[in-house]
Every structure is written in structure tokens, then in C-alpha cells.
């Protein structure tokens, strides 16, 4: 069976990035917007959050983002793959990581709120 699906890598990548950003920006966007999932974008977001509150522990959120980025190859800017057909990421793995991300982002939001009120 041919497992190739009729979607470009850009479509698959954007769909996945949107799900991740919905979680992160839904919880933490009020402090700083995460604008993408490349190494450079995550680094820029981390820098902005640290400027706001440098006592907050971002390790758990960053760890899940890193796992996503590594498994789905989101780290690099690969805009030229816009038209290339690609394979789909396993949905089960995506759901598990999204759950972990949601828990981590929720905890970070609570901590940020607490630190900023003290």
C-alpha cells in the first residue's frame, strides 16, 4: 500500500504547528506570542519570556517543544518544501505530546501569574 498522502509537507507542517501554537499561545500568549517552531523562533520567544519574568521555569514546555520539533523536523526553515508531498506524522504520538504540552503550558502559566503578582 502506498502510504504517501495527497498533501504537501507545508500543509502537514502547518496543520501540526497550528495545533501546537493553539496550546502554547492559548496558555502563554498573553505573556509573549510564540510565532513559530523553528529553533530561532523558540529561542526568540524564550528570550522575550525571560525578559518579562526570569524566575519562571520554562524547561518542561521547552522540552516538549523540542521533542515535537525533532520528531516532526520543524527546527529548520524549509519553506522550499511547500509543494513536496510527504508522509503523515503518527496521530497517536502527536496527541500524546499535545497532552504533555498542555499540562506543561498550564503549569507555566500558573507559575508566571504567581511570580508576576509577587
Amino acid at each position, binding site marked *: 500500500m502506498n502510504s504517501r498522502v*495527497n*498533501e*504537501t509537507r*507545508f*500543509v502537514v507542517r*502547518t496543520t501540526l*504547528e*497550528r495545533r501546537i*501554537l*493553539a496550546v502554547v*499561545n*492559548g496558555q*502563554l*500568549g*498573553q505573556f*509573549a*506570542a*510564540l*510565532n*513559530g517552531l*523553528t*529553533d*530561532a*523562533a*523558540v*529561542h*526568540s520567544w524564550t528570550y522575550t519570556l525571560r525578559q518579562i519574568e526570569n524566575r519562571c521555569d520554562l524547561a518542561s514546555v521547552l522540552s516538549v517543544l523540542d521533542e515535537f520539533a525533532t520528531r516532526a523536523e520543524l527546527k*529548520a*526553515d*524549509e*519553506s*522550499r*518544501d*511547500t*509543494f*513536496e*508531498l510527504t508522509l503523515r506524522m503518527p496521530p497517536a504520538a502527536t496527541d500524546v505530546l499535545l497532552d504533555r504540552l498542555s499540562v506543561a503550558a498550564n503549569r507555566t502559566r500558573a507559575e508566571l501569574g504567581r511570580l508576576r503578582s509577587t
Partner: protein
Amino acid sequence: MSALIGTYLFGSHARGDVDDRSDLDVLAVVENHSGRVPLSDVVRTLPVSLRKKTPTVAWYGRARLDEMFRAGELFTWHIFLEGRRLYGPEISSIFSRPAIYTNSVRDITSFVKLMNATGHQLEASEANAVYECGVTYVCVRNIAMALSWLAMPRPDFSRYSPFHLPESFGTPMAQVDYDIVMTCRMAGQRGYPAPHNINREYARDRTDSATAWASRILDGLMNELAR
């Protein structure tokens, strides 16, 4: 040099329209199933004048790229028409001429579908506005590339492709806004500072305008195909 078959410059550096926003785009063709070679192997193939800049490398195994050439993927036309050999054999001696690109309707439809989902993302969080503007930029640019295949003597892969189409196509947004959504894309990809005041309304307006533009063109294409 290890499993590296060849490296090829493409994009603005190959076309000669470089500006301060240009990536250094390099295609690296490697032996099948070898995976990526060390980046330093690719950098070594660059002209000395370009070695200070980190290249954005598109890695492809020979068989995969051959498959894409045979399928007539637009990316292979980009390489075939504009690629400049840095190391290894000429592209034309490894791969045959790409097949005719026939997937413009499929590709444009997929970009319209992506833009249609923007509203939902913006409702979920206003903090998604910069990312969504960036998605709109990529969609608009690539729709224009696909259209240029149909409407121009030679496909246009440049960053301003939407503004090079024949006048009858209209434009997806003002060029000043196109520059802003492009900057949003660079914020999301390269970590550059995002433009100021990008909010939900701005992102929605730009995407709605682009979606209406693309949908009108797509309808026209479908009508022509039906005739």
C-alpha cells in the same frame, strides 16, 4: 566527499536578486538512504564569498528527487530553471527534464484550504496573529508561483511573484501589507522581531483579502477546465 552527490544554489542568490532578507538556499543531493552529510561538507562547496552565511539546505536523496522530477513538482522546475551547480554533476546530467507541472489546481486548493482555517486559529488566540500572517504570505506567494506556470512565459519563483502576474489576476493585498506579512513569516521562521501592532483584525483582513483573491482565480481555473 562522503555521500554528497552534488550541491546547487537556488533562490535569490542564484537569480541574482539578493537583498538583506534573502536566504542562502542550497540543494544538497545525497546518495539514497545515506541521510544528511555534515553541514560543513556542503559549506565547503560554497564560493568563498558566501561561506560566512549559514545556508538553508534542502536535503534530498537522489531517488526521491528523481521521483519529484518525474512527477513534475514545481520545486523541481525551480531547480531545473534556476539552479546553479556548486559541486558535482550538472542537474541535467543526473535527472531528466521535469515532467509538465499539472497540479496547479490541487496546490492552489490546498493553500486556500489552509487560509480558510486562519479564522479559527485567530479565535483560539490573538497571539497566533503573527504566525497566521506568515502562513498567508507563504500561501499567496506559492499560489502566485503556481499561477505563473500557467500565465507567464516562464514560472516566477521570486519573493514578489504575486505582483508579477498579469494585471487581470489582480493582487491579493497591497504591497506594503505583503511586506508586513513577509516579515511575520521571518519572525516565525528565523526568529526576527515581529512587526508591531499585528493583531487579530489585521491578520483576518489580510487573509480574507488573500483568500477572496485566490478563490476567484481558482473558480476561473475550474471553469476553464470544465469547458
